[in-house]
């Protein structure tokens, strides 16, 4: 007999395994590891560039193997689904827009994000000399 309210245990380490929606959330949060690794690669690349042409070439060569290409492909897909699509879908929540006293439908905010994304990507491809 306890005579007091019962507090159910809450596992601090496995709570996210309990429900589908928590798992999806965790998959989204895991992208931070990929972001970290990308940041590391960028810094390593910049450092190589600063050292001179030879260092830069060997950095480029170090990226041209199956493992690195696979990593980039996986990271790209992962970012697309868990960063771009997921965050764009949530964007209207964080920025409601009113036009003439009426709340604008969230779709416009999402579409705006996709347009901005396309324009920025085109700009980067142009910078890189791809288009």
């Amino acid at each position, binding site marked *: *007999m306890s*005579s007091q309210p*019962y507090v159910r245990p*809450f596992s601090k380490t496995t709570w*996210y395994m309990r429900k589908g929606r928590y798992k999806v*959330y965790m998959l989204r949060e895991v992208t931070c590891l990929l972001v970290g690794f990308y940041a590391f690669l960028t810094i390593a690349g910049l450092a190589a560039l600063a050292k001179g042409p030879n260092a830069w070439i060997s950095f480029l060569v170090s990226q041209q193997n199956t493992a690195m290409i696979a990593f980039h492909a996986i990271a790209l897909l992962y970012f697309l689904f868990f960063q771009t699509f997921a965050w764009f879908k949530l964007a209207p929540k964080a920025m*409601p827009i*009113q036009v003439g006293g009426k709340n604008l439908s969230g779709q416009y905010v999402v579409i705006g994000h996709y347009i901005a994304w396309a324009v920025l990507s085109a700009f980067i491809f142009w910078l890189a000399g791809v288009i």
Partner: protein
Amino acid sequence: MTIRQLELEVMRYDPEKDEAPWFQNYSVPCEEDWAILDAINYVKENIDTTLSYRWSCHMMVCGSCGMMVNGEPSLTCKTFIRDLPDKVRIEPLENFPIERDLVVVLDDVMQKLHKVQPYIIRKDAPPQDKEFKQSPGALEKFKQYTMCINCMCCYAACPQYGLNQNFIGPAALALAHRYNLDSRDQGKSQRLDILADHDGVWDCSFVGACSEVCPKHVDPAAAIQQMKIDGAMEWWKQKLGFPGGES
């Protein structure tokens, strides 16, 4: 009227007798158009009068019949048996201490609702002998956040609240946002300390579970993200020496 036999597995806890909660099974003949609350009422009236639970209006207004239905925080008056399998597990709302059976202790969230100062705060005197004017557009800005019925399903869904009981949590933060957005209110800076604290908006990691389970489409997660942006802007304004704007 078709009758469907529903197997209810209901969590029971009697603080006078039990060390821990346990499950009791009830077989309930349900009519097709019943909500889970009807099935629980049937148990109370016909099978077991000792079952404790809260309910009042049966029409999504009072917010007292929130329970876990097959693991999902739900208002039992709007959770229909036609949408559920034949076996249904009913538990008290998660993340709250169990008072008895399906009744939880809500003192903590009651205090939090109070803490965010959910009322119009004025620095200037209110208009004399006439009402505050508010345009439909100004009302539209916060109307959705007034729909909350304090059912606390969002707290039961929020893993951050489970991890940190000091987190102010979805409904109370949405309520604070409702007043911050109100064109008649001038209390935003007064609420900022509570909201921008550790246990305020920044403890939310945007799991979004609160909004998914909210039966009134309040979307507390949206309110919290908007407050984060607001709070960050306010911080920069102060850093850069702009006068703190009041909306």
